[in-house]
């Protein structure tokens, strides 16, 4: 019977001490513990969120970078292509010009050769005429014996000259 009959003294002390530890623990233990647990959870949650945000930001930056890179690559390709075209154009233009120049020089050369040739021919003709005159003088001087022979000779010379 004693086992199931609450003792007044035990009831009193239990009530006193349980209330005491309830109040003291509430103020000095549970309040700071629960408060810091909550804070810690909040900070962890925030950290996770900010990590997620950073990840997104990174992904965005990476995508941007790739876009910029792709653009740059395109730009470079275009520039190279343009440069090649320009080079080829320049070369072909230069070649064209050189050809024309060469042709012009050759033409000029031809013309001048022709004139030179005419000049030479004229010179030769003059020289031949002079030579003929000199020869004729010599012949006349030496043998003006026979007119027939003279005539024959003159004809012969003339014929020869014409051939030239």
């Amino acid at each position, binding site marked *: 019977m004693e086992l199931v009959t609450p003792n007044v*003294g035990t009831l009193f*002390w239990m009530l006193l001490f349980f209330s005491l530890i309830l109040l003291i623990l509430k103020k000095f233990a*549970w309040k700071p513990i*629960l408060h*810091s*647990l909550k804070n810690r959870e909040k900070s962890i949650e925030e950290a996770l969120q900010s990590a997620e945000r950073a990840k997104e930001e990174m992904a965005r930056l990476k995508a941007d970078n790739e876009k910029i890179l792709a653009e740059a690559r395109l730009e470079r390709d275009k520039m190279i292509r343009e440069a090649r075209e320009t080079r080829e154009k320049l070369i072909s233009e230069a070649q064209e010009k050189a050809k024309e120049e060469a042709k012009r020089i050759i033409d000029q050369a031809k013309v001048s050769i022709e004139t030179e040739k005419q000049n030479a021919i004229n010179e030769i003709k003059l020289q031949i005429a002079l030579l003929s005159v000199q020869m004729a003088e010599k012949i006349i001087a030496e043998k003006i014996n026979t007119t027939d022979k003279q005539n024959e000779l003159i004809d012969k010379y003339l014929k020869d000259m014409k051939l030239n």
Partner: protein
Amino acid sequence: MKRVLFFCVAFLLSIQVVSGIDTDTSSLVTDTLRESHAEKFAPGEFMLEHILDSHEWHIITLGDHHISIPLPVILYSKESGWHFFMSSKFHHGQTSYKNFRIATEGPNKGKIVEQTAAGEIVPLDLSITKVVFSIIFSSALLLWIFISIARRYQKYPHSAPKGLQSALEPFILFIRDDIAKSTIGEKRYEKYLPYLLTLFFFIWFNNMLGLIPIFPGGANVTGNIAVTGVMALFTFVITTISANKHYWQEIYNAPGVPWWLKFPIPLMPMIELLGMFIKPVVLMVRLFANIVAGHLIILAFVSLIFIFAEFNPILGYAVSPLSAAFSIFMGMLELLVALIQAYVFTLLSAIYFGLATAEHHEGH
């Protein structure tokens, strides 16, 4: 070979564990040996003695010499006023002091009675008994542990928990998230959390201390009906104070109940009103009975040795390994029960708070 060795070691260890599994089983041995000379071993009386409260803290009995820690006796008598003295004045209950003595027989057995001219009266006994001393000790332990933990939380708010803090944090979080939050609700649980935490750790610590056989432990605190009664009273008072309109409506005029159960004889309201008081009473009895039963079973297994030894000492030796094995098993089970009962008491209290504060749409 290894297995045999292991078994031997385990057996030797188990004897040591069992020899001290309850309050002061070591003294049980000597007591019993002494008593077996004079009188027959009475297991019932003996087991009760280890479960009940007492005015002194018995450590050991060597031969006829009792060694115990005296505890203060505080008495108020209508006849002679206040009295303060140490329990050693009673000389282990054998002598009386200033007309006071510890009754050994009759309805007041175990209590301090006063011999007056009008006969024997029972004074108001506010003594620091074994159980009260244990309550003070465990309260101090709780305060020391949790305030030092709280200080660490404040000092290093962003570092990982360490030591005792990391051992107890899961329990704190469990009570907060799985007991308070889930039964009372996200909005209102914070108000009840300090009480639930104090309740859980007070019951758990005292259950565990009750399993330690040597001095600071070993008192049967949570197996004392006054102790469990006070905790149940707290739960009842908090439930009743925080009860909302809906809670009272459920009691006096429960919706969904046929009208003839409420009028002319208010059968359902009567049952519901009774239920209000039965709930804390059940809380009180459940914890008390579980802890007492656990202690009784272990003591019974130990007593078996001496019961058999009375027939024949060899029989007593033969039974002891079996008794030891069962006592160890029960001891392990008690470690689990210590936690489970603390959990059950806390959970049910939380459920009652939840019921008392539930909004209409949350119930049923």
